[in-house]
């Protein structure tokens, strides 16, 4: 089978300078340095079909971004091989670069002092997008992300959410077949997060693009990805369906209650495992299938002012995957 992304035994090591603390250490380092090898990614195997959306999750420093950078061609792997759309990414052939895009939530490409439309026009030239196609895709993206009113506004005057939407447009004007999204919703409010997710879903459907998404928000992963890859310390611990991962490792949800008057600890212990308690607020860890029953009992028995049910944080799931 021909994959859009096919990585075999992909590894990346970094040589890290180990400095002793203080001024003495700094002076010593001027003459003699000690280096450690950091194994950022270790023997990663990854096969992704055209049109698939894959969630790539892991804690900070797990190797997600390094893997994306190798897949996109930004970094040379220390070991292993990778083919994306049949190309070796780090050859950086222009015909390859015209078919991919990397969006990083914490990096920007928009001209800060000019309206976003100027960056779009520049990308049109860089990617050599024909006029008719450019106009059509731009109109489409502007409509989908509701950008009409801000297109001609200076980028520095835009909100973070508006800027991220524009960053996304700038990155996909050339309708890439493979899209690497590294924390695209980081720092955005819930409403914008939802809009971006809906957009990514629509884009994937319309252009049958392959998307790898890294995110710390379980909401992003749940809404967009059928398949997830869990990585920690540079090694893949799980690669499979999200449903299976949830069934196996995210067997609980958290319920947080806010009380309208103080409640004693002994009154709440009987409802489930208490993660956090103060007389006006408590958080329980409850089995997924028991949620409706327990929630309704809590509302009935206790002076509840507010109730919130949260997914198990990604970090906890990863911890369970890696034992």
């Amino acid at each position, binding site marked *: 089978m021909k994959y859009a992304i096919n990585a075999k035994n992909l590894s990346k090591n*970094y040589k890290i300078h180990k400095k002793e603390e203080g001024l003495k250490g700094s002076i010593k380092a001027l003459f003699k340095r000690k280096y450690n090898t950091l194994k950022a990614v270790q023997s990663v195997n990854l096969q992704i079909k055209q049109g698939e959306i894959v969630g790539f999750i892991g804690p900070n420093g797990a190797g997600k*971004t390094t893997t994306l*950078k190798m897949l*996109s*061609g*930004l*970094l*040379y792997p220390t070991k292993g091989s990778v083919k994306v759309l049949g190309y070796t990414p780090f050859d*950086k052939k*222009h*015909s390859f*670069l*015209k078919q*991919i*895009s*990397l969006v*990083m939530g*914490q*990096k920007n*490409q928009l*001209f800060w*002092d*000019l309206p976003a439309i*100027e960056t779009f*026009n*520049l990308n049109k*030239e*860089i*990617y*050599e997008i024909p006029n008719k196609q450019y106009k059509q895709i731009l109109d489409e993206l502007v409509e989908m992300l509701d950008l009409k009113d801000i297109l001609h506004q*200076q980028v520095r005057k835009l909100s973070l959410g508006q800027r991220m939407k524009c960053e996304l447009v700038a990155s996909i004007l050339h309708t890439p077949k493979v899209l690497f999204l590294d924390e695209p919703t980081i720092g955005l409010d819930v409403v914008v997060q939802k809009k971006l997710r809906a957009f990514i879903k629509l884009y994937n459907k319309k252009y049958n693009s392959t998307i790898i998404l890294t995110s710390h928000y379980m909401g992003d992963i749940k809404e967009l990805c059928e398949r997830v890859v869990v990585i920690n310390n540079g090694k893949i611990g799980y690669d499979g369906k999200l449903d299976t991962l949830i069934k196996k490792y995210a067997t609980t949800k958290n319920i947080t209650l806010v009380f309208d008057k103080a409640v004693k600890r002994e009154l709440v212990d009987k409802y489930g495992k208490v993660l956090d308690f103060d007389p006006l607020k408590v958080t329980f860890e409850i089995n997924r299938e028991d949620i409706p029953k327990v929630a309704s009992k809590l509302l009935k028995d206790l002076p509840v002012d507010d109730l919130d049910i949260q997914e198990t944080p990604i970090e906890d799931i990863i911890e369970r995957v890696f034992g």
Partner: protein
Amino acid sequence: MVIKKHLSLYKTLFKYNLQNTTVYRLDFIMGVIVDIGYQLATIFFYSVVLLRVNSIGDWSYHEVMLFTGISIIFMQFYFALLWVFNIQDLPSKIKNADVDLLFLKPINSMFYLTLSKQYISGFFSMLSGVFLIIYSLINLNLHFNIVNILSFIVMFIFGLIICYSLTVIITSFSFKYSNTNALSYLASSITGLNSTKPHIIYEGIFKKVFFYVIPVSFMSSIPSSFLFKGFNASLFFQSSIITLVTFLLSVLFWNYNVKSYTSAG
């Protein structure tokens, strides 16, 4: 086709930089004033020194002044097109991985990272050089022919390419050794060696070094001499070879060092 695409991109980027410059008017005006002030101080210094010695080597006072005017224009081209907004910050951009997204665009990275931004005020600062050239030409009463003028223009462009290439060779090591701000300053110091010093002041081993090892003599000094000393086939040939070799070396060094880029985060 590739050259056409990059020329067209350069035009677009120039247009954007012009727009950017007009956003901060005061910064732009202050930039022009400070630069012209600096150039006038340089001219004043040289005129004071030269009034006492009258000539340098076989170059007369007005010939040196003509060269100084050309050097000012040369250096302003260097600052405006290359150094101020591209090379100066390149090491810190590399250290902070601000170049990541650029490497993934279907565009020559050396072109984009070294030439995409222009320091527009720098072009206005060329005025002091233009003034000095006009003043010297009036006093020199030179008789130009088409060979003089054309060979000077070609040599001046060769000089800019040599200057660009040397700067790129030095700065490209920032990809290999992160946090190397000293490299961009080294590049500007080497080219600065040329800015106000005619090649005739070097003799013996220094002459060889500044001709063939760090060929700063070919940047603006030798091209200037074509205006008042006439066309010199040997120097023209040497300059052509050095331009080609340094440019090819800059591409090789850039491509080699870029492979060491480790990004960040």
